[in-house]
């Protein structure tokens, strides 16, 4: 085999590998939150109060620079059940004495797990944190901790 032929083969394999890596990155699937290990488990009040005490510190602890933020398990009492603009079920876990709660959004694939629950039930929800609780002066109200990609793990 000639030296030129060898170079071409090696070069060809190199380009192919680079192409495959590029395509894998480009078509990389979204993180499956429910199959990701839980980072922290809390009562709804605990995470809310941690945020209301020092939001910057909490953001540093829970939010990820590329949006793959911490996966939390939250135990709480259902204060409200609603639906968002995308017809996703939204369950608010909030203790009556707290200023804010944890708002949990359920995608279509876990929606069937939410059919038999009602206000007042105590449940554990797993999901990814998107933003924390805070008092917003412009809204003039407290904002909840937001979890998405949720599922109920115990009730």
């Amino acid at each position, binding site marked *: 085999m000639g030296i030129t032929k060898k170079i071409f083969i090696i070069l060809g394999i190199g380009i192919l590998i680079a192409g495959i890596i590029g395509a894998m*990155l*480009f*078509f*990389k*699937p*979204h*993180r499956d939150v429910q199959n990701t290990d839980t980072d922290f488990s809390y009562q709804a009040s605990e995470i809310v109060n941690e945020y209301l005490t020092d939001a910057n510190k909490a*953001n*540093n602890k829970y*939010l*990820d*620079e*590329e*949006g*793959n*933020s911490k996966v939390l398990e939250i135990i709480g009492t259902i204060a409200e059940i*609603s*639906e*968002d*603009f*995308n017809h*996703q079920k*939204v369950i608010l876990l909030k203790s009556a004495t707290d200023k804010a709660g944890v*708002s949990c*959004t359920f995608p279509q694939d876990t929606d069937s797990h939410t059919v038999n629950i009602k206000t007042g039930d105590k449940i554990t929800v797993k999901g990814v944190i*998107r*933003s*924390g609780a805070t008092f*917003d002066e*412009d*809204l*003039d*109200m407290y*904002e909840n901790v*937001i979890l*998405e990609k949720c599922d109920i793990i115990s009730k």
Partner: protein
Amino acid sequence: MKKSFLTIIAAVAISLTAFAQKQISSNTHMKFFSTTPAEDIEANNYKAVSTLDTSTGDIVFSVPMQSFEFEKALMQEHFNSKNFLNTKANPKAKLTGKVTNLDNVKFNTDGTYTAVVEGDLTINGVSKPIKENVTFNVEGGKISLSSKFNVTLADYEVAFKKGKPSTNIAKTVEISVEANY
């Protein structure tokens, strides 16, 4: 006697609630749309909270930036990263504005109204004045809002210096907003 007093209190409390002029919505949709010859990129966010004071025309949107969902995971990571929207440092975007032609918008009468909202938009920790048209629709006492406007990313110090995202993301992106109060 005591019972009737409580009834009056309850009636007053209920009527006050009914006349409350501050409307709150967490039933919202924001869409980010960018188009270049290379590709179209779209992201959706359903987690913004908005308030609307129908007596003063004050309007506020608070948007959790990490709730923008892209079709491709890699794009979502780029969007959140330090080079782009830096959502770890600036987890929320905000709009605070005021309807400037409040006389033309009858929030208590069914109909469709075009309003002008003037205020400040804060993205990536950078605030800029904005003035945009907003459509209010009032139906059976329920108010809904929709608007579409353009945002030039460089105005908010959002810019890719190099690499693929700098050529595949438009310099000016279109933002659509919908909210049901």
